[in-house]
């Protein structure tokens, strides 16, 4: 399992604990289920594959991705050579790694310019946690010594600007607010000018939540993206799609639609501290090749971690061993 070593991290213990905290609260994780399923079958047959399918579906891994995965598993040479169901476990884990990596080395570091301004744009449907995530990232990057500016680009939702402002104060970073503004692009434009003039390292742009099937709102986003691209070379350097871990199959439609109007560079999976697994991000990676960059594990500004595939799959698989 050479693949595993790619993901070994130094501070692994602390991270594992956080994932476990998040996942353990559920008591019944996929691993518990997986083991139970495997040990509940004497032989490798259709029944077993059906049960495995259910377990994947339950974690919200996409239906198509799951069905393809199970089909590929059945055809796998290694599977053909074994008779004991429990021997399937490492093969399944290995194949999940392949599903995500696709033979590439996935880099989930942020694309931050060495010199000059980096602009990050945050997009997603309503209520996924965009504003909170921006606060968390601002906190983390500030700790790394960067000079951060926030742009309050959600001019639509009542209280959204205030919410980001409270966070800016808590984290101790600057923010651009345009009172009474209705066109978010103008806020973004102003923030970009300020960031350039006053030599900020990173500009984090908040946007209003928008359902991906609302044409006008998606066009508005396209415009914001255009403004950024026009004002800063090669920007936005990151366009991050925020996905709520409770999201089901609709996550695929979200990824597809947001990709049409912006150049999505990564997914941030939020609310993973609940009982939901957010498996749809695996399908998003599988279908659209978008990597997962970070995960949100709570409401505090420290509750954000870089995505680690081994930990995530481990998290999906954690469960009571009994």
């Amino acid at each position, binding site marked *: 399992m050479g693949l595993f070593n790619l993901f070994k991290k130094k501070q692994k213990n602390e991270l594992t604990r956080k994932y476990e905290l998040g996942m353990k*609260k*559920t008591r019944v994780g996929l691993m518990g289920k997986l083991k139970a399923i495997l040990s509940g079958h004497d032989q490798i047959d259709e029944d077993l594959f059906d049960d495995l399918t*259910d377990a994947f*579906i*339950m*974690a*919200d891994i996409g*239906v198509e991705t799951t*069905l393809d995965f199970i089909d590929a598993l059945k055809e796998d040479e290694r599977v053909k050579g074994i008779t004991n169901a429990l021997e399937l476990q490492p093969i399944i884990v290995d194949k999940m790694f392949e599903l995500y990596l696709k033979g590439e080395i996935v880099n989930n570091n942020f694309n931050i310019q060495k010199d000059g301004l980096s602009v990050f744009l945050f997009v997603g*449907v*309503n*209520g*996924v*946690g965009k504003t909170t995530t921006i606060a968390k990232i601002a906190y983390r990057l500030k700790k790394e010594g960067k000079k951060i500016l926030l742009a309050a680009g959600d001019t*639509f*939702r*009542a*209280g*959204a600007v*205030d*919410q980001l*402002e*409270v*966070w800016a104060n*808590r984290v101790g970073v600057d923010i651009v607010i345009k009172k009474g503004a209705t066109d978010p692009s103008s806020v973004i434009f102003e923030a970009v000018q300020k960031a350039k003039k006053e030599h900020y390292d990173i500009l984090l742009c908040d946007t209003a939540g928008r*359902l*991906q*099937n*609302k*044409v*006008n709102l998606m066009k508005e986003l396209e415009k914001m993206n255009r403004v950024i691209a026009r004002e800063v070379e090669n920007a936005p350097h990151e366009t991050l799609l925020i996905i*709520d871990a*409770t*999201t*089901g*199959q*609709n*996550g695929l*439609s979200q990824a597809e639609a947001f990709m049409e109007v912006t150049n999505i560079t990564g997914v941030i999976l939020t*609310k993973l*501290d*609940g*009982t*939901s*697994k957010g498996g*749809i991000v695996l399908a998003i990676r599988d279908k659209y090749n978008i990597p997962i960059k970070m995960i949100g594990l709570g*409401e505090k500004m420290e509750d954000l971690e870089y995505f680690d595939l081994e930990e995530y799959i481990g998290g999906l698989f954690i469960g009571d061993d009994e």
Partner: protein
Amino acid sequence: MPFENLSEKIQYTLRKLTGRGKVNEKDIEDAMREIRVSLLEADVNYKIVKEFISEVKVLALGEKVMKSLTPGDQVVKIVYDELVKLMGDEAVPINLKKAGTSVVLVVGLQGSGKTTHVGKLANYLRKNNKLKPLLIAADIYRPAAINQLVTIGKQLDIEVFQLGTSVKPQEIVKKGLEYAKEKSFNLVLIDTAGRLAIDEALMQELVEIKALSNPDEILLTVDAMTGQDAVNVAQTFHDKLNITGCLLTKLDSDTRGGAALSIRYMTKIPIKFIGLGEKMDELDVFHPDRMAKRILGMGDVLTFIEKAQESFDEEVAMKMAEKMQAGRFTYNDFLDQIKRIKKMGSLKGLLSLIPGIGSKIRNLDIDEKRFTYIEAIIGSMTKEERNNPDLITKSHSRKSRIANGSGRSYQEINNLTKQFEQMRIQMKAVMGMDESQMEKVSKGQAPMPAMQASKPKKGKGKNKGGFRF
């Protein structure tokens, strides 16, 4: 994807057999596989899917389907009927006191839409139940949550009771209820902080709020895009609080909303309301039959008709018809109609309710702003011009002036006037038809005086067929 909805898939699977006479068990098996995948893609809980399939299969293997000339129709009907049955046959109304102050407690996960829906519900109940609502802002955790509720209250002209973020939510609710009594509000809606169902401390807070407010209705807001975990979440909240109803939010998205079925079936909590947008009037009562159609991808005609009825009053419609018939349809009438259509909600939202269109308009480019543009153009016309459209058609200088005034291009003004003229001619033609002519048209024996299809829009390729009136 050749088939975007389940009913089409089932039809296709079983239509392949036409000509062979009978359906056999293997065919039904194939249809069941389609149903299974489709329900899973709609986020229906996998356990329910399993049970559902085995039930439907028994019914489908019955004589009626096997001998039917239209087995596809039969199976679709069985699936539809079973879905409706699972979701509870009819709409369940909200619990309110007949007299005295009713209390509605709204709870849910973070980001599920509680604050917005507290506003929508207050607005809805004020209008439909003639109640005087007070909103209590008990979310002291999320930054600016109180501001959000206060802003919504202002928009709706509904009072919001708040004590800032340094007072415990229990205390805020207690004081708020006293205030409601004092000022004789007869409906109190409590907005609470979003929380994970497994957060013991915060769940305890809700238990205490429930105990001291004794709510008539405890509504759980659930995001319609929720996946398999919907049941878990609902059940955990239910165990602690005895939820009396569910409010399914963000149904204006393109989700199929299988979570509704999962929650209703596994927890028995009735779905009472659905949220259909960010505007304060975009709330509706939940109808199981319509939801079943949505999960099947069959559209929602009834909601469409109801929306239309709400926005069009008959008298106005009659007057309009008279005008059309006489060819006296003016720009003022046109403007009036646009306003009515806008009142019904977003065009795309409306179109998606029509069966057969739902899946097709997902990629259709409907520019809702076009209405606004037309309004701007008509707004730049003089009174005289609006009442006498011919004035513009012939005058280059008038068109230029209108273009300048409305900020739209000359070309656009030209297009609009052309379309408007054609519309007037067609209206007159349709209105002037006698019954026998109408019948021919409706039977497809004679062509409908077709609405002018304008040039396809440029850009983005794809077959978008740009929307026109």
